[in-house]
């Protein structure tokens, strides 16, 4: 039974780290972007009317049978190769048996002890006290399975499962191909565990996007992360009891959820109690995890080889063909971009771990200066994404939009302040950068006449400042420039105003 989501005790993070060593395990589910489902020819489009992308097979009607989607298998192998995995010579599907109304057959067609991909790794860079450090995340396996239907809970106050009177099920999502990527226990990260986890998911997302196998939209659920977390007193101690935190649906929540769960488990352990092995649910809004289903020993999935599907035996020729056609390895790509842009390891790591490599690269390709592109994506836009609890890539703004803003600033048509307003407009859905500029009348005032008039006005209002400047205190010009900027509602180019002012007063800078 679920317990009420009362606040649980937590310990400060530094206390957790002083007393415990965390071990993580990450399970990432990737919804493939195939045209049809894993085992039938139904469409996979997001947002279709309920139960219109279903057939006897994905509805689990009596008599129906599955047939494997070739592209899903190919995608699984490509993912495995990109994650440095071995590809099985021969493997089978297996049935995972359990009853749940979102699963039409009451078993999930998955893989068990014969995954198609196994023994891989992904390297991620994280900032540590000693500088940027590379952590190798070992990957246990990547296997194929199918998604479940979507259940909506009716009646009751919140639309949530508790207190609901009944539920409605839409099976459009049922049977969409999933690849589950499971890490080996991730040890030795110490206090950097949450950052390493986040960096791993970011890196994985970049790999998957590069392969073009999924749209990897965390907020739409096409990339989902479950985090297994346990604490032990020292790295030499046996593994502690783990919890599995589900519903971690953004990059930032990977980090937050793990950090929270570590502080919660530490409080439990420090109080002398034991951690309950259970599923927990992450709540982005409140920043806590709550108890879900207890993982009892009675859970017995009775796996056995799927008799309705024949084994998969990818030929070595096929695997090598797919390997040869893989896109550039992310580590190589990062090095290349870092060189192209001429930036430090630290700056490059910041771009990578913000999940912004693609965004910055695209923005630069569209004509923006690399420094400006990084500044906007990792500065203003990262701040807004954080406020909205979204990942950067999920903000309603494109690389093309940002590139255009950067170009407008470089041309002097916008200053930073105006550029921020343009970005606000784009995010508010007011159109492209140029459309927002036009609609809001945000162009920098470039005609000198109105500026000179405004300067005269400001000098008249502050004669003492004017005297100081004349007397050589050039720094005092800021007050006049500020007044001009204010009177022109920010639309002046501050540099131009300053130049005109100094010219007007006959002062030259050293």
């Amino acid at each position, binding site marked *: 039974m679920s317990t009420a989501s009362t606040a649980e005790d937590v310990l400060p993070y530094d206390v957790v780290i002083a007393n415990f060593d965390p071990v993580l395990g990450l399970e990432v589910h990737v919804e493939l972007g195939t045209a049809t489902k894993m085992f039938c020819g139904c469409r996979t489009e997001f947002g279709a009317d309920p139960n219109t992308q279903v057939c006897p097979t994905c509805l689990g009607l009596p008599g129906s049978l599955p047939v494997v989607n070739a592209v899903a298998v190919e995608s699984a192998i490509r993912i495995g190769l990109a994650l440095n995995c071995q590809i099985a010579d021969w493997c089978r599907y297996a049935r995972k048996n359990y009853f749940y109304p979102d699963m039409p057959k009451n078993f999930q067609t998955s893989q068990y002890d014969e995954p198609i991909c196994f023994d891989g790794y992904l390297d991620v860079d994280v900032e540590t006290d000693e500088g940027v450090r590379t952590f190798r995340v070992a990957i246990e396996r990547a296997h194929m399975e199918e998604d479940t239907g979507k259940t909506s809970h009716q009646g009751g106050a919140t639309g949530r499962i508790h207190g609901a009177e009944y539920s409605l099920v839409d099976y459009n999502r049922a049977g969409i191909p999933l690849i589950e990527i499971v890490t080996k226990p991730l040890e030795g990260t110490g206090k950097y565990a949450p950052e390493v986890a986040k960096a791993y998911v970011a890196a994985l997302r970049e790999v998957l996007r590069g392969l073009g196998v999924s749209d990897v939209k965390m907020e739409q659920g096409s990339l989902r992360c479950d985090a297994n977390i346990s604490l032990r007193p020292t790295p030499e101690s046996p593994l502690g009891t783990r919890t599995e935190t589900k519903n971690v649906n953004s990059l930032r929540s990977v980090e937050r959820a793990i950090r929270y769960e570590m502080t919660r488990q530490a409080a439990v352990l420090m109080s002398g109690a034991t951690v309950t092995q259970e599923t927990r649910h992450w709540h982005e809004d409140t920043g806590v995890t709550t108890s879900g289903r207890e993982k009892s020993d009675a859970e017995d999935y009775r796996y056995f080889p799927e008799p309705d599907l024949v084994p*998969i035996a990818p030929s070595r020729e096929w695997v090598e063909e797919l390997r040869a056609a893989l896109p550039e390895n992310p580590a190589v790509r990062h090095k290349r971009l870092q060189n192209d842009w001429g930036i430090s390891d630290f700056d490059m790591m910041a771009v990578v771990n913000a999940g912004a490599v693609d965004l910055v690269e695209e923005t630069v390709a569209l004509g923006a200066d690399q420094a400006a592109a990084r500044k906007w994506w990792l500065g203003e836009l990262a701040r807004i994404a954080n406020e909205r609890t979204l990942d950067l890539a999920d903000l309603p703004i494109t690389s093309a939009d940002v590139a255009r803003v950067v170009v407008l600033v470089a041309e002097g048509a916008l200053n930073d302040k105006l550029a921020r307003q343009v970005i606000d407009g784009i995010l508010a859905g007011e159109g492209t950068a140029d459309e927002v500029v036009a609609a809001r009348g945000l162009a920098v005032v470039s005609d000198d006449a109105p500026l000179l008039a405004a300067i005269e006005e400001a000098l008249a209002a502050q004669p003492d400042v004017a005297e100081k400047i004349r007397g050589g205190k050039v720094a005092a010009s800021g007050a006049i420039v500020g007044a001009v900027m204010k009177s022109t509602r920010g639309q002046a180019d501050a540099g131009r105003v300053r130049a005109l002012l100094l010219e007007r007063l006959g002062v030259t800078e050293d």
Partner: protein
Amino acid sequence: MADTPSITRDDVAHLARLARIDLPPDSLDHYAEQLDVILGAVAQVSEVAADDVPAMSHPLPLVNVFRADVVRPSLSNAEALSGAPSVESERFRVPRILDEE
């Protein structure tokens, strides 16, 4: 199997739970008795020395049976829901779900 575990009433109750069959309590002993007899008979498989024999999950040695990623017509919403015991808003209506999310 020389030491075939005998099936108890509690075992039957556990199996029934796993198999989602709400058996009347007064039927458990009878099922336990019958399953015990059947298991005793099928445990005969353990008499066969087969340690180095591969397991056979499929009768034909087929591999790599795939389908092109090409859309086929789905059922209409009405057809999909035609056999459902309860329907609401184009969806399957099911009783309240406990425990899990």
